[in-house]
């Protein structure tokens, strides 16, 4: 369906993913340790949420703000299975993801009838409702409430056999690699999907759903598939996060924590482009972390001002347009000797 890409472009498409994956996997060998490794682990998991938002909402323009609900369902299923049924965390990840995907259809179903702002607001209400339930009596007695559910973290039973000094570095490093592999796989999957025929159909729905239906696209099927991929990504992120960072608190359901970073990455990165949001996901984290050293407690304020400026300056997304410019510059350089 797309115009044939030049060889140079094809190579670049492959290359940017490979280079990013390589960088992610090599960073610890280059001496990245401690705090920054933890930060990067978290941001790797956030990449899953960003891609989850971008692959469904960025392309079909059904703005699904219920991401925290999906991630939270997976996290709570995992924790509950472990605490009450004594299922090991490693095993519980699969059922947790399954349950979260099933529950996420609570968000999807209304989208068959409701479009636009109504759907977005409804999907936003679900995590808020869930957060309210988790923190109020009598449910909070079982779900841990504000204090959270505690359980031993992923791989902790193995780490306990190590000498005390090696435990924390071991856990940090293994969590980092788990998150990095998840991030690379998620990126490859969504990139492939977004630039396939199915991705084309998703964008067609975003532009004009009735017209898309008219051209023979099975809009329902396309929406279901991309929503499934999207909620699977969010569930995996939620389950992994819960497994790595006990105790599990209501924080995972609060939109400010698990919706705002992916949403800003998607908008600043350029909706539906996968590449832009992924870059923005890492770049924004870097800005946010570095701001602490520069402006101290004013960091949130300054960060938000930067965000506003970026959105107003380039509503289509700053990062993706920069990426396209850089790519055409490189391809022109490669092609230049031939002409």
């Amino acid at each position, binding site marked *: 369906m797309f115009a044939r890409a030049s060889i140079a472009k094809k190579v670049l498409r492959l290359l940017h993913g490979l280079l990013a994956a390589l960088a992610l996997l090599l960073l610890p060998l280059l001496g990245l340790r401690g705090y920054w490794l933890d930060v990067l682990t978290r941001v790797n998991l956030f990449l899953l949420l960003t891609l989850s938002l971008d692959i469904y909402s960025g392309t079909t323009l059904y*703005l699904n703000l219920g991401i925290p609900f999906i991630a939270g369902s997976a996290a709570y299923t995992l924790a509950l299975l472990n605490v009450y049924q004594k299922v090991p965390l490693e095993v519980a990840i699969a059922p947790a993801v399954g349950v979260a995907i099933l529950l996420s259809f609570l968000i999807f*179903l*209304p989208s068959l*009838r*409701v*479009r636009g*702002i*109504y759907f977005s*607001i*409804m999907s*936003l*209400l*679900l995590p*808020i*409702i869930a957060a*309210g*339930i988790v*923190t*109020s*009596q009598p449910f*909070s007695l079982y779900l841990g409430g504000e204090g959270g559910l505690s359980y031993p973290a992923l791989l902790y039973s193995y780490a306990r056999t190590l000498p005390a000094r090696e435990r924390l570095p071991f856990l940090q490093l293994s969590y980092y690699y788990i998150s990095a592999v998840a991030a690379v796989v998620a990126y490859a999957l969504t990139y492939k999907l977004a630039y396939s025929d199915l991705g084309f159909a998703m964008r067609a729905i975003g532009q004009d759903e009735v017209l898309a239906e008219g051209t023979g696209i099975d809009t329902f099927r396309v929406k279901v598939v991309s929503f499934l991929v999207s909620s699977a990504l969010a569930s995996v992120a939620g389950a992994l996060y819960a497994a790595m960072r006990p105790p599990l608190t209501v924080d995972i359901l609060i939109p*400010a924590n698990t919706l*705002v970073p992916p*949403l*800003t990455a*998607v*908008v*600043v990165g350029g*909706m539906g482009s996968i590449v832009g949001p992924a870059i923005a996901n890492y770049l924004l984290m870097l800005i946010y972390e570095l701001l602490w050293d520069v402006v101290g*407690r004013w960091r*949130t*304020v300054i960060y*938000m*001002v930067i*965000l*506003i400026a970026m*959105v*107003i300056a380039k*509503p289509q997304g700053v990062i993706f347009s920069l990426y396209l410019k850089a790519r055409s510059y490189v391809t022109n350089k490669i092609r230049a000797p031939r002409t």
Partner: protein
Amino acid sequence: MEELKYILVFGLLHSSTYLAFSLGFSLILGVAKIPNLAYGVLYVLSGYVAYELMMSVGLPFYVAACLAVALTGVASLLVGEATIRPALKNPVGVFITTMSVAYILEEYFKMSMGLKPVTLPLLPGTVSVAGIPVSNQWILVVSVSLAMTLALVLFLRRTDTGMAIRAVAESWEESLRLSINPLRVLRVTLLLTGLYAGMTGVLLAPLKALTPSAGWAPLFAAFAIVILGGVGSIVGTAIASVIYGLVEQAVTFTLGSGLARVVPLLLIVVVLLLRPHGIMGRGE
């Protein structure tokens, strides 16, 4: 029986404040076609400004309240000019920009006012409503809220500016043809909604504790009420406010205040599944 009376009285009292607050939100949602996520923080801003004017400057309540409301209106206009107007063509972008404003102000309040809840002094005295003692503050709140609602209805129906607002809410392009300037209408709406948020803020500050993040709960309530009632329908918003207030109070008295935040929202999700465009809303 006694409990039912409490639920009815306090439910209706709360409904009136939800109504005034939601109408402002509904207005900006209708005109600009985007949810102004900074609307909740304006409510907090006005409360804090009134508090500072009373405690630090020593102004009497009514003067401080009027100044705070006026300032909130101007703040709403400035916020809109800076973050809503430049991103109008980009609804998702407006989500980010208005939310950023909300966080900026929240962060500023945290640094300047601290996390400790703050309340304004109550009006002294109580009156008995159907045998239940109700603070005079509530009476003030209800009468001002209802007056604000009535004023808005008259304003939208009877004045040229009000009709221009309705025209723009109906169709941005059509209103251009009627030689209405939508951007000017947007400015008027921003100012007006700022006044409504500010008014609710100063009136409720003596009854509900004010914290830097206190704006989110009323914002989500307004969200839910406007969606339930149908965007742009004042009657629908009124019905939805009453439903919301009554359900909230009923749950507070029976299941506890924790679930009272949740059940009304849950109800709204269910209603929306059955009627996707709200009680009085029209389909597209």
